[in-house]
């Protein structure tokens, strides 16, 4: 069990990486009016058949051949349900997978969102050939981070540099802080 939602997201994203996704979309949507914190992780990886999909919430199911347990999805589901929220997973073989966790925002049993900047930076730095889209919304105001946009700006010029990473980090931190406007999710 993780201590915050951002670590759960990092874990679920590893599944997308293992599914050889070329595009991973991560959405965090906070709604004070609806009292929800919704996380969606969508990829265009290899997907799962209906029977694999039914087993994926079982902790003793895994596609990994080196171990006999797979706790990532069950942990995420449990985290959402502990807050009184719900969990959905949808997948199509050959098309991709979408994981959705809806947390009750005000629940005392909802774990904090945690450091999303760290999670997104880890995913971006460790998967240079995968496109990552991250959108963060608080009460219908939000921002979108999209590595395809960065690639378009840089073209053939390498964008895996200190300056670019520093920029991405402050982009994520500053925009998140602005949207949170003092609140701590």
């Amino acid at each position, binding site marked *: 069990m993780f201590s915050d939602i951002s670590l759960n997201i990092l874990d679920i994203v590893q599944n997308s*990486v293992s599914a050889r996704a070329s595009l991973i979309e991560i959405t965090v949507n906070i709604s004070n009016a609806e009292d929800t914190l919704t996380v969606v992780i969508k990829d265009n990886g290899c997907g799962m058949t209906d029977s694999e999909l039914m087993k994926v919430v079982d902790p003793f199911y895994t596609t990994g051949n080196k171990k006999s347990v797979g706790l990532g999805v069950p942990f995420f589901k449990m985290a959402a349900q502990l807050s009184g929220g719900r969990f959905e997973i949808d997948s199509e073989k050959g098309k991709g997978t979408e994981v959705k966790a809806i947390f009750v925002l005000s629940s005392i049993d909802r774990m904090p969102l945690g450091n999303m900047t760290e999670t997104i930076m880890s995913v971006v730095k460790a998967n240079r050939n995968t496109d990552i889209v991250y959108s963060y919304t608080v009460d219908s105001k939000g921002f979108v981070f999209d590595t395809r946009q960065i690639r378009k700006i840089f073209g053939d010029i390498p964008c895996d540099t200190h300056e670019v990473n520093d920029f991405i980090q*402050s982009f994520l931190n500053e925009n998140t802080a602005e949207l949170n406007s003092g609140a701590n999710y």
Partner: protein
Amino acid sequence: MKSLEELTAIRDKMQAIVNLRIEDSSCTKIVVGMATCGIAAGARPVLKAFSDGVQSKGIKDVMVTQEGCIGLCKYEPIVEVVAPGKEKVTYVNMTAEKAAEVIEQHIIGGNVVTKYTINSAM
């Protein structure tokens, strides 16, 4: 709000620098285990330490990547260093501090930090 378009200024500055793309095959890979077990054991700060360290030291032919569970969960965070033509080195129970040592001694200096390898942990 900051916009990604601000990156055009950084790009224009970098265009002046001749920067050859390194081929993946000639690149040393630092592979960090990022499955449930790895993350729970603290893989995220380890990955950050490696990628920040590699970049701040200006090391060019090294790539930091992530992978899933390799089945040795009790030794997580696990980091593998895969250099072309050399035997794979597996570091176990890693921390951000140990990562700095590995960068300094192994990645830059070429000497494996044997006290952190899996062989010395078993």
